[in-house]
């Protein structure tokens, strides 16, 4: 059902086609589902909403979860708690842990992955997980559909690769097997945004040799720290690394940290170094 109601016009489509038609006509409208980020970030409780709001909570296609052998597709309007209900044995471990740490339990009944991914000014705590799991996003607008990797959708800085009339409809999480999968979140986000840090690390090992590794750090702002060069440097290495072997690793890490556009405090950089060292220790079979 779509109707205009009062000074803020609120439309509530029930099907995807209805949503896309509406959004095509009103590309400036605010897409609203859980609304947790929008409402939490309002300065005053009477800040109000834009002139046109499209409530996508009732669109059935956006509320589906489909699972195949190779991936799981989550509708962009599925609540975080519903995703967690899929189970820790099915969801990638890092994603499960990140979702649990993300928000208080009650808010997780409102928040959605779709809303989280479409936040413009920050990459948020869970972004490293999305990046490393190589999630894919389905974007649809009237008459067109495309898939894009998250890394291209939400690139460096605050920009999102969303074209006019496009709606994020599905999030595809490929299943992959990792011998080690770790998510760590350091400092609650509310405490002091500049201190916040999250980490995700994935590795495939064989007899203490790194066959494949990915890791990334998230901060409260738009900065995400990931270095493919560093990952490649570690692949094939035998753990634990001696001092001489660590030298080139440390060098690439330092170059990565210095090359960040917005910069990090020395404190944050030091923690990144420590966490990376900790992660490599975790990979060693005792």
């Amino acid at each position, binding site marked *: 059902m779509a109707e205009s109601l009062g000074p803020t016009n609120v439309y509530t489509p029930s099907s995807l086609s209805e949503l896309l038609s509406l959004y095509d006509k009103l590309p400036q409208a605010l897409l609203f589902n859980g609304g947790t980020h929008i409402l939490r970030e309002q300065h*005053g*409780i*009477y800040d109000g909403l834009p002139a046109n709001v499209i409530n996508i909570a009732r669109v059935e296609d956006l509320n589906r979860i489909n699972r195949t052998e190779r991936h799981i597709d989550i509708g962009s309007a599925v609540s975080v708690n519903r995703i967690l209900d899929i189970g820790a044995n099915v969801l990638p471990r890092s994603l499960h842990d990140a979702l649990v740490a993300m928000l208080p339990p009650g808010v997780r009944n409102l928040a959605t992955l779709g809303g989280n991914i479409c936040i413009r000014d920050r990459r948020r705590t869970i972004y490293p997980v999305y990046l490393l799991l190589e999630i894919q996003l389905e974007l649809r607008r009237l008459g067109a559909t495309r898939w894009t990797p998250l890394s291209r959708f939400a690139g460096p800085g605050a920009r999102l690769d969303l074209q006019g009339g496009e709606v994020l409809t599905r999030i595809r999480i490929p299943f992959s097997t990792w011998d080690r999968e770790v998510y*760590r979140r*350091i*400092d*609650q986000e*509310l*405490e*002091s945004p500049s*201190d916040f*840090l999250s980490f995700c690390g994935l590795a495939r090992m064989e007899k203490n040799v790194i066959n494949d590794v990915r890791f990334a750090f998230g901060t409260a702002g738009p900065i995400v720290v990931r270095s493919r060069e560093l990952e490649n440097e570690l692949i094939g290495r035998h753990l634990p690394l001696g001092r001489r072997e660590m030298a080139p690793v440390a060098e690439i890490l330092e170059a990565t940290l210095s090359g960040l556009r917005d910069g990090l*405090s*020395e*404190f944050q950089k*030091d*923690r990144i170094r*420590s*966490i990376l*060292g*900790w992660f490599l*220790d975790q990979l060693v079979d005792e």
Partner: protein
Amino acid sequence: MALQEDSFVGDLAVEGMLHGFVMRAAVDRGEILSISYPKVPREITLLFPEEIPGEPALSLFSQRLPLFAGRAVTFRGEPIMLLCGPDERRLAELAAQIEIRYRAESPFSFARPLEIQIAEQREVLIGAPDRAFDDAFQIVEGEYTTCPQEYLVSDPPGALVVFEDERVVVSCPTQWPYHVRNVVATVLGLPRKQVEVRVTRMSPPRDSRIWFTSVVAAQCALLAWKTRRPVRLLLGCEEASSVQPRRAPSRILFRSALDRDGNPTAHDIDLAIDCGAVPLLGEELLERALLAAAGPYQSTAYRLRGRLVTTSVPPMDAFQGLGLAQGFFAAETHASRIAELTQTDPFTWKERNLVKRNGLLAGGAIPANYPPTGLLARTVELSDFTRKYAAYEMLKKRRETIRDQGSPLRGIGLAVAYQGAGFITRSDEPDPATVVVRLEANGSLYIMTSGVSPSGEARSAWSENAARILGIELKRIFVSEPDTSVVPNSGPSTLSRNITIIGDLVERACETIVRKRFRAALPIEVKKSLKLPRANRWNPEEHTGLPFDRLSWAAAAVETEVDPVTLETSVRGIWTTVSCGRVMIESAARRVVENGIVHALWWCSSSHGSQRSPALLEFPPIAIEFLSAGQKGWVGGIEELAACVVPSAYVSAVAQATSRYFDTLPITPELIHRYAEEP
């Protein structure tokens, strides 16, 4: 337990009620140049300071807090004008259109105060400290700082004011209903008996509602007076967080002379407290901080200097501890440092130097009672302190850097302190605390006091005590609601006065009823008022005498673990031993101490200004033991003890864990990193 009748002030609404709104200063300090606003809708009323019919200020002891900024702004968030109307949204919209122009000035800071910022100074000389320093075997110095601490009160501050015929009825959450009454009457220029205050339900206020509610109530009353309509004024969460008073920050410098055995022979202590824009409770704050900074140890020679510094922030508040917490933090952390430098186990050092029977407290004060034998020892035993301390010392010595061992870094700290009850500097004259107890003909007992007991513990304690003395069933004992038109003035419910002063008055009244019961006809009504002892009264100039008429003591051990990767600190356990005389209801007492510990930990680890309350997962295992004095005897306060012992023990534990001296609160991962990087 049915769903209780919830009557928080925000739950109350009456027919025709208007909502109030406070326009606040957006600069730390400066001058208001102009206020401009658009056409005001008819249903909205504005109120400016010059319209106030009575005295435009709140009085507290000898201090005065203007209710509005006037031309000069002295702190950010200072009220400038008021609005009210039937629709909160419209009020917010109009408020957003009000433009206030300022000429901003540099704010007064605590770090580098100017002479004009010094509101009060004190200097006390006891013994011959200079000679002791000349003869010292060793001198140890330290500087200890504490940050502001914010109240984590769940329900918003507010008030509802209704004019009923000639009476002004104020409903608000307050720990001091008579203070609200007096302030509202003064502001409106009315006789006090025309104002009636009814206390609404509130979450445990932790001293956030001693005088601040009087400000809110007065603002609300002004709007009700002008509009002749009921008005409810509620502060929003963010607003409350920014303007509610906080625990006063402090900076305390220690210089101690030690003899060959590592025992102190003299201390030179310089103390500064940030009291905010107005030193409302400043005199009390300063006295207590000086007293506590001198420590719980045997007296030595002293030079004590204290200053109250005004700054461009809202006036600071009591907060549990009111100066004792800041003083003991410095004293106990310094004592632990001395112990370490003299290579003495902290337990041995503290036990040896703790004030003993017939001794004087450090600084010359007479203790009302001494720490019981075994207080520290029991804490040490419960926590396994001696073994852990030695083990962590050994690990510390083997460590080159924080990260070279790879495993979590552990430490354990120990502290001991005391608290009293009531105010030191102010007697309750000319309004002595009063309680009325009445035994009815039908055998019911009514206890009438303006004492406020939000979690019900004090009320239960008064009732249980009365039941015990009079042999009456609990269900026949009633504690009146603290309505000023009904109950006498018992003073503020803070500084453990509920359980000590008011509790004593109730007890004495019941004992009088026992004596009269079979000689006089019922009903029997007995009124008791506080009489302060004349002998050994506290002398602030000389720092001698009895600061409190009874002392409760506590010792705490805190064990911490620092993650070498993230530098986050977690608490592995807290063990506390408390001696507070007779414990009336142990489960309630335990809750009070536990809650105090949680808030003390929050002060230790959270950067000030954070609105986040502790997550349940962060709560550590806590063991509390009371050294009971049996079923008879005095009852001591316990609310402040945790704030007095936990922070220092925590800091000492982190210091041991990280091999760095910590001397400040809070301790954040960033601070640990900074200290670890220093050579």
